[in-house]
């Protein structure tokens, strides 16, 4: 064993460069999780593809979507659903880190505090973009067409990615509260499931009872899906885009602050 030089000093964490290098290292680690556990990616892709097939060919005929064929109506919604369910993994991963003592190790290192959370949420952002590209490819094979053109498609994907990133912060906060990966999985799904259905993802909301329609109307999911649908199909976007952005920014600011506070205190 080489002699340990006891007096070796490292500078205290400082500067943007260190923070960025920590975030890159942690994001890479987060992405390696999906490379090493490909089943996480496979299942998070199979489920929406099944939904896409089932809803299009089983329910599609019975659902009236004025102005759009059902596949073109559904794809934007399914993509938003993909990132919502995908964001659950952010909390699961953090809860796992807590259980296995990784958070204790990270906290004892001279690294940027924010990098642990940023690494997870950014890795899940990259993962979401990959799954989205895969889903759009499948959708194109099934006959989906983006009438809004390539720019519309790109803008729509950017909006979905941002939306998923915001939801990752909610999920991070859940993961840090429940501190157990199985619970994080359940707690992450249980509240979004009704929200996903009570929105414009699968059906036009004006067929819902008035009370539910009123709820679905203000749901962040509905305004985001409506914006994505408008961008992809080239129809007027209306007020949806700014409502979606307000939701996204609001969720991101509030839940990233909450998650950071929780991370500081968590043991």
């Amino acid at each position: 064993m080489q002699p340990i030089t006891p007096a070796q000093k490292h500078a205290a964490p400082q500067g943007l460069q260190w923070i960025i290098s920590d975030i890159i290292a942690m994001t890479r680690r987060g992405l390696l999780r999906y490379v090493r556990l490909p089943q996480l990616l496979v299942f998070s892709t199979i489920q929406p593809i099944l939904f896409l097939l089932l809803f299009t060919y089983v329910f599609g005929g019975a659902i009236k979507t004025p102005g759009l064929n059902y596949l073109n109506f559904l794809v934007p919604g399914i993509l938003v659903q993909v990132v919502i369910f995908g964001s659950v993994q952010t909390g699961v991963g953090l809860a796992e880190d807590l259980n296995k003592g990784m958070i204790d190790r990270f906290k004892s290192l001279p690294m940027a505090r924010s990098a642990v959370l940023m690494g997870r949420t950014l890795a899940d952002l990259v993962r979401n973009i990959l799954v989205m590209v895969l889903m759009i490819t499948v959708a194109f094979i099934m006959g989906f067409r983006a009438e809004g053109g390539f720019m519309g498609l790109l803008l729509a994907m950017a909006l979905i990615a941002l939306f998923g990133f915001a939801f990752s912060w909610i999920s991070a906060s859940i993961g840090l509260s429940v501190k157990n990966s199985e619970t994080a999985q359940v707690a992450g799904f249980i509240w979004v499931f009704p929200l996903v259905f009570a929105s414009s993802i699968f059906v036009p909301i004006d067929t819902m009872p008035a009370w539910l329609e009123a709820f679905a109307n203000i749901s962040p999911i509905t305004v985001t899906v409506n914006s994505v649908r408008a961008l992809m199909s080239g129809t007027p976007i209306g007020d949806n885009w700014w409502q979606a952005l307000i939701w996204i920014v609001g969720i991101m600011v509030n839940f990233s602050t909450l998650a950071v506070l929780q991370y500081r205190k968590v043991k």
Partner: protein
Amino acid sequence: MEPVILVEDIYKSYGTVHALEGVGFQVHRGAIVGLLGPNGAGKTTLINILTTLLKPDKGRAWVAGIDVAQNPAAVRSRIGLAGQFAAVDENLTGKENLELVGTLYHLPPKQVKDRAEQLLREFSLDDAANRQAKTYSGGMRRRLDVASSLIGRPEVLFLDEPTTGLDPQSRMELWQAIRKLANNGTTVLLTTQYLEEADYLADAIVIIDHGKVVAQGTAKELKATIGGGVLKIHTPKQNVPALVQALSEFNPHADTALGIVTIPVKEGIKILPEAIRKIDAANITISDIELSKPTLDEVFTSLTNKK
């Protein structure tokens, strides 16, 4: 000599649970200090405070000359921590685990690579370097965990129950690795529930119980505090009263159920022939006689059962 770890009157409570109630001690450079105590004594809380994971309610502590509460960031770049659970990322290979921690210590990339390879060799993990840690045995995980805590060449290494759950062979290997580190100047503070471990490894032992330091010193000093040991005489049960009578001047203690009479050894071995002469004179049959040195176990029990 200036202490590397200095702990002064630390208090920490979780609600109504008082984990630490005025702990103080110091550790010299290059020493291995064993923090010994029963479950719930406050060992992990203390480690968490010294590694900047927790803030104390009251009191101060310095690690490598730096106040842990005032400048935690500077402390973090000088310490290594291997916590109670082996903190390895199962989805990464052994090498990737080490390189991740090295990068987070902000070592130059070249040094991260070299150091990782060196540690993999030193902890006999080079054959498994490119395998995911989920395929590792418990002992290998622990070694990888300790190796990770060393990648930044820490001045002070904190090990929280490092050998819990390890088989005897892995435990011995880890002990040797820790010894080597201390020989090379790294200061090691480890917590343990195993007295044997503290006895073998630690230059100094700090015993804590109910959040307070109840004793400290070398294993030898601690053993000396409870005297020179005991002489145990085994005899058929019916002989116990007669034996106690015969040995009355030595302050005997009788366990009638087991047929054992114990007498404290105060002034060395000469008590043995004296006792035998008395037993012989009284014509009592005995089945066995043993002289036992005090163990750290007895020190520990006598200290932590006081209340």
